[in-house]
């Protein structure tokens, strides 16, 4: 799995950080998403997919490889 984030779309909802804190973080200055791990381990895949579903701004893309 490869994760991509579309930073300009992010609205800093924090949903992804809540669900997958090892994969997503937020910038200190404005809470906008920071991708920590673009190739997360299999154990986190379900959480990453859920983050992409609940992201209100469609800013997370999951590419299954």
């Amino acid at each position, binding site marked *: 799995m490869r994760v991509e984030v579309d930073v300009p779309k992010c*609205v*800093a*909802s*924090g*949903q992804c*950080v*809540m*669900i997958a*804190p090892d994969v997503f973080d*937020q910038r*200190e*200055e*404005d*809470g*906008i998403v920071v991708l920590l791990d673009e190739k997360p381990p299999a154990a986190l895949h379900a959480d990453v997919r*859920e983050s992409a*579903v*609940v992201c*209100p*701004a*469609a800013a997370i893309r999951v590419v299954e490889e």
Partner: protein
Amino acid sequence: MTETLAETTTEAEEPLAAFPMPRAAGCPFAPAPAARALQGERPIAKVRLWDGSTPWLVTRHADQRALLGDPRVSANPLVPGFPHPNEGFRENAKRRRTFLGMDDPEHARIRRMVTAPFAIKRVEAMRPDIQKITDDLIDTMLAGPTPVDLVRAFALPLPSLVICRLLGVPYEDHDFFQEHSARLINMESSVEEVFRANEALTDYLDKLVTVKLADPADDMLSELAARVRAGELTQREAASMGVLLLIAGHETTANMIALGTVALLEHPDQLAALRETDDPKAVARAVEELLRYLSIVHNGRRRVALEDIEIGGETIRAGDGIVIYTGTGNWDAEVFPEPERLDISRDARRHMAFGFGVHQCLGQPLARLELHVVYSTLYRRIPTLRLATAIDQLPFKHDGAIYGVYELPVTW
């Protein structure tokens, strides 16, 4: 208005259903039955509002998500066709503009001025403070007489204290701002009442911004004041944002605390499961489930189409109003099996109680934290908590933009 009426009589044989739709007597938690029926029969259907306008009512989860996430859909109440909830909101929207009623890119630019304090980690750092506020309020309640109104004694002060600290608003003024906020979001308020409440709150925040300009502190109003000084916002805009944050920061969470407590007291097995768990993740699931089950922002997200949109076999035309009733979306069996069951162990994260799309709640990490602390503390510290009146005697906020109870007499 005459035009709209003429158009609908030729378009539809049957008169359109009026929205908002009433909840069923004896079912204070369930979304309006007429809207649930539409979800099965005609999930995107025209309805009639107070002013005779006929926007689309959208009742299914998938369609709600699609439309709230669609850039062709506007949240700007100044766009013709916008489905205003009442006259007061319509008139006030002309005077008071906040990012809640703006579209991107303007919306994103302004929202980002206030996102930093709501980042998950910054909010999590407030946990000890929120726990202390919660414990102190419970201590005071336990030391006092019963029955007690849980709204006045606990549900309202808790988020008010928290948002006051975050913004830099003196809590001593709570009677003033709570009263005016309540008037501003009451659907029965007249235009004059809405104007007066809005002016009073904006003037109040305006004065506080002046104070913060001269004497900045570590709070959000001081950050907004710095933006005024830098020329990024006018002082009136900063004050309006302060009003939005102050109201959104206390009225919503307060209702989730009080109504959530009523719902749990009515589902003793769920309350027992919540009281007995030591697992913070189980409490977090309960928070999401109660948000889903209660969908307290119950007047529908209001939007207007900027272009023609094909969805679910219907064509929403440019200029058509759209009302997205998340109460039924959050009770959509396609996403939440047996939606009428309050089940604190289910995975309810796909609910839209905080909305969806770019306007999704800015304060959600804070609201979640407050509810997490409350739901894991209140029922443990007062294990015999119970209603001091019959549930059908409770004054439910049918007339509020945000659902809940005006009063909650409890005893233990």
